[in-house]
């Protein structure tokens, strides 16, 4: 699953009511049913599904990864593009009229330097200021871009706030489709679902610029692409999302949606993608995730879990997930306008009873402010 979806809810709400002509409420109500919901039975078609799905309201392309420089220094990165669709009657006139809004986040974690950098961009799908193509993946805002080439490579470019990334990623496994019957459920309601696939293992090389020096880096990245409309169950307070890339070749994705009363939404789930690329859907009752430590943000006072014990009994998987850097909190004042924690983690433990190590990324939302 992913992510920052609720933040969309907020932002979309603002934008929708705001861009809707005169009688905002009525227009919103009228516009909402026009969005297509993510429904079971969906058949993924690639490369078309790598591209944008304009009939769905929300869509995002997420890249995270754990990289190492030649000297062994570790760096985490995140580059995300969000598309928020806005439906309203288009008027004659300005090409700047807002239809799709784009938001993007860039984060780099310098593990040895114990520094976390992030930046954000916003743009509209007008005059090529921002956009995403259909047919294959190419999302951009200004000079930030994520693009999939016909040869299967993904190119990532973004720079801001003192860091930049220029990375090329090649898939080691084919795309893994999450959920069942083409949908990943996010709650009880029928529309509470998204279409969601991941490239769980992308061999990545390129350069990263941190603190004025540009370094050659290599490592593994993870790509999520998810789209839907109105997908998060109302009453959700936030969620925790985990990606883990293990040295035995297996990759694991888990997400736990929390309700405001603290209970986990039963539709929370996960996926195991083994070394051979076989995927298995995990239901909530097949897994457990226990926080082991807590971290309080000096920026906004939010208290985040900081270290977990993950058990998937059916596979004899017992893993400890630990942040590589305590402070990997993004306070996005201008785009999604929420604070969330998304950071590089180290993973160790046993898989099928055998010791494994690896790296991963964790996303925590709803801890800073009530979504």
């Amino acid at each position: 699953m992913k992510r920052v979806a609720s933040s969309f809810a907020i932002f979309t709400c603002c934008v929708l009511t705001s861009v809707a002509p005169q009688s905002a409420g009525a227009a919103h109500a009228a516009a909402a049913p026009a969005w297509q919901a993510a429904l079971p039975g969906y058949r993924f078609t690639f490369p078309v599904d790598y591209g944008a799905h304009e009939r769905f309201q929300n869509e995002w392309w997420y890249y995270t990864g754990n990289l190492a420089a030649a000297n062994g220094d570790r760096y985490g990165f995140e580059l995300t593009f969000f598309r928020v669709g806005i439906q309203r009657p288009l008027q004659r006139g300005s090409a700047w009229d807002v239809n799709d809004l784009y938001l993007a986040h860039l984060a780099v974690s310098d593990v040895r330097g114990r520094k976390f950098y992030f930046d954000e961009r916003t743009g509209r799908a007008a005059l090529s200021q921002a956009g995403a193509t259909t047919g294959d993946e190419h999302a951009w805002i200004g000079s930030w871009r994520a693009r999939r080439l016909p040869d299967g490579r993904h190119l990532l470019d973004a720079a801001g706030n003192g860091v930049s990334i220029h990375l090329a990623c090649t898939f080691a496994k084919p795309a893994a489709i999450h959920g069942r019957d083409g949908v990943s459920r996010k709650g009880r309601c029928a529309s509470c679902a998204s279409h969601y696939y991941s490239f769980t293992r992308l061999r990545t090389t390129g350069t990263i610029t941190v603190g004025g020096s540009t370094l050659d880096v290599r490592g593994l990245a993870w790509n999520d692409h998810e789209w839907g409309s109105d997908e998060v169950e109302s009453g959700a307070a936030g969620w925790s999302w985990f990606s883990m890339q293990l040295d035995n070749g297996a990759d694991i994705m888990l997400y736990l949606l929390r309700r405001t009363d603290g209970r986990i939404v039963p539709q929370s789930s996960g996926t195991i993608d083994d070394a051979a690329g076989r995927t298995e859907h995990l239901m909530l009752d097949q897994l457990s995730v226990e926080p082991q430590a807590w971290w309080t943000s000096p920026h906004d006072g939010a208290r985040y879990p900081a270290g977990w014990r993950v058990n998937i009994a059916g596979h004899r998987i017992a893993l400890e997930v630990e942040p590589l850097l305590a402070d990997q909190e993004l306070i996005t004042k201008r785009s999604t306008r929420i604070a969330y924690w998304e950071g590089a983690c180290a993973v160790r433990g046993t898989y099928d009873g055998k010791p494994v190590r690896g790296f991963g990324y964790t996303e925590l939302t709803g801890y800073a402010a009530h979504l």
Partner: protein
Amino acid sequence: MRLTPPTASSACATARSKLTDEVSAAAFPALFRALVLRHVVAHRARTLVTVASVAIGVAVSVAIGLANASAIASFSGSAAALSPGTTVEVLPLGVGIPEKALRQVQELPGVRSASPVVAGTVSDAAGQSAYDLVGVDLIGALGLASSTAGPGVPSSGEIDADTRILRRGEIVISRRVAARLHARLGTPLKFVAGARAVTLTVGAVIDDAALPFGWRSIIICDISTAQEVLDRIGLLDRMDVVGAPQADDQTLRRELARVLPNVRIAAPDERARQLTKMTQAFQFNLAALAAIALLVGAYLVFNAVSMSVVQRRSEIGVARALGAARSTVFGVFLLEGVLVGVVGSAFGLVLGRLLARKALAVVSSTIDALYTTDSASQIAPTPEPYIAAAVLGVAFCLIASLLPALEAASVPPTLAMRIGSWESSQPLPGLLLVMAAIAAFGAAVLLAQLKPLDGRPVFGYASAIAVIAGCSLLAAPLLALIAKVARTCLPATAGAALRLVPANVQGRVRRNAVAIASLMVGIAMTVSVATLIASFRETVNTWIDETLRGDLYIAPAGAVNAADVTMPDDVLSRLRALPQVAAADALRSRAIVLRGRPTNLAASDIEVTSAFGNLPLLGGARWSNVSRELIDQPAVLVSEPFARKFAMATGARFDLQTPNGDVRLRVAGVYRDYASDLGYILMDRTRYIRLFGDRRINAVALYAKPGASISALRAATLRVFGHNVVRLTANGELHEEALAQFDRTFAVTYALNGIALVISLLGIASALGAVVIERRHEIGVLRCLGMTRRQVATMIVAEAALLGAVGAALGLVAGYALAVILVFVINRQAFGWTIAFVATPLYDLKLYLVAVATAALAGALPARAAARLPLAETVRAE
């Protein structure tokens, strides 16, 4: 005023002064108390007038200085803050930059970011005030602002967590603008843009402090709204480009020029610099007038310190005899002048700050009307105007007291013991003074020939000061001459009191000369500025009569000042079809930059302009020849200020940048124009449209058929446009409006002029009053010799009136000389106008009578007091 020390006992005095230097240094405070403070306290009223005159002069300088500085600060503030970090601005040559070019620019390697701007003017529904509407990409700019970490455009966070700004037709305004528009969040506001009514809703109201300076008085909206409201679909009015860190300015400009060959690439502060340049002549002239007000004050200080030296001649003598050094005496009187300067300046600074708001309102309204839409409304917190005015105030007082202090220092101890010898017995160096005056006048003539310095008529003002200096030097010899003539010519029947007058005047010629010189300066300034304004007004009036031949003028509502408010030209055919209309001339005018200097480009339908209009052509050119050339050839007319500023005459050729490349144009003729001191290039509208692709118009001049009713024409026109979106002005109304505009422009000048007159009248009153008071002893003697009180009073009033008459007459002469300099040198250098000299004899006569009457009145009050003095006391010394 004698500069050479008397020979008697001077050697001795020198020796003694060496011995007593230390003594006198210690005695300085005591001496200052005895010679100055006691006197100052005793003559409270006069001291007050002197200090007040300095205070007023300094106050005026401070107020004008602050107003000027604030206007300039607002120029750079508004230009700089719109997009922080902007390296260059890309501006259209024609009607706009195609928005499709934005992405191309953004992808240039040398470009870090390029922000689109759509800007224009809207007016409130009443058409009373205009507002700048600026549309930016509020969505894209959010991310941009975060990475540049500058103040940036208002981010969503600053807009109170409310993204309503994105709603179509919504605007963001500062609290200041909200207050002016009586608007709150959600208030729908009616505006007129380009002769169309639009409704914009307040989507966010932001604290002024949360906005960069330049954003506080404008209306901000998303670029999509701005394009629709301002009728700029598909076009940008500007791109603010931030260069990449590695790209230097030259590389960036080269890259931009490659992608966009026909735009203008400007430095971000260009507009501010141009506005500063455009207004500098206007501002310099205000500052100069303010300094002249201070100069009049300086004459009064000169007068006052001279007077205090004269009145304390005997005390000075005593002090010198008791061992006070020359330098001590000199220092004591210099200190008096400086003290007056310091105290007067202190009051002046406070008063100036109070006056500044008023001055700024007047200065801004003039600048708004002539040069830009929204100049300063707040006093800039700069210390320079205060420092400049205070330094000027104290320096003028120091210089003014230099001569009297020197004279005091030269009082010989022996001479001082003689009572009654107040006036120096040295003969007046009349010939020397006259020659010095002639030299000053010669200098004035020479200075008037010099070219302006950087657009400022510095030498023109120097010439004016030389005239004032020359006339001041003439005061004493002229007074002596008049007294001599009066003495011989006065009929025996005139009576004893009157017959004494010339002798009295002659006996105190230097003292009196100072008094009349200060009156002269005030009168001269008043007369000259009044003459300038009258000449200018009459010239403009005649010109308007000649040129405004249209019967009805149509402009979009809100076209109240220098704003470029336009309307589409699709109304022209409907207007021309009206039964009352003989012809309609479409007028377009916009600011451009030629050879790096701001000027205006105008277009009209030359066929109509030549047949119905009447722009006066200079140099004997004929419309019949010129109009064919304008229509058939790449030729233009230029206005007279343009011809002067760009040094181009008929036949000259120049290149004009257009969206289709540079075009070489020939100057087919020069026409007389008073609409803009920046000048005009006028071309046929068909050519203009072809070159610039701009069909918008700023106004339409309708010419009615003979016998057609203007009110019917007005009604028919309103039916074409609809109500409240255009302003219709009939010929007569426009004439009046133009003159009213003229008067508003000169409001500051009128005010400064009045202040100078008040100071100079105060001066003559205080000077003459002092003359009477110092003559109490003499009056006592005359009374002992049998003069009646009435005769004494008559004598003194007559003397005062004579002095007033001579001073004012000298003032009139000097005033006319200054007027010539103002009209033909300063005005021409600063603004480039041709003005026909028009004298204002009636005004001058009134001024003259007021001056003489004030002088007589100034004599009358102390005369009565003097006549009532107890005899014994006044003549005790005899």
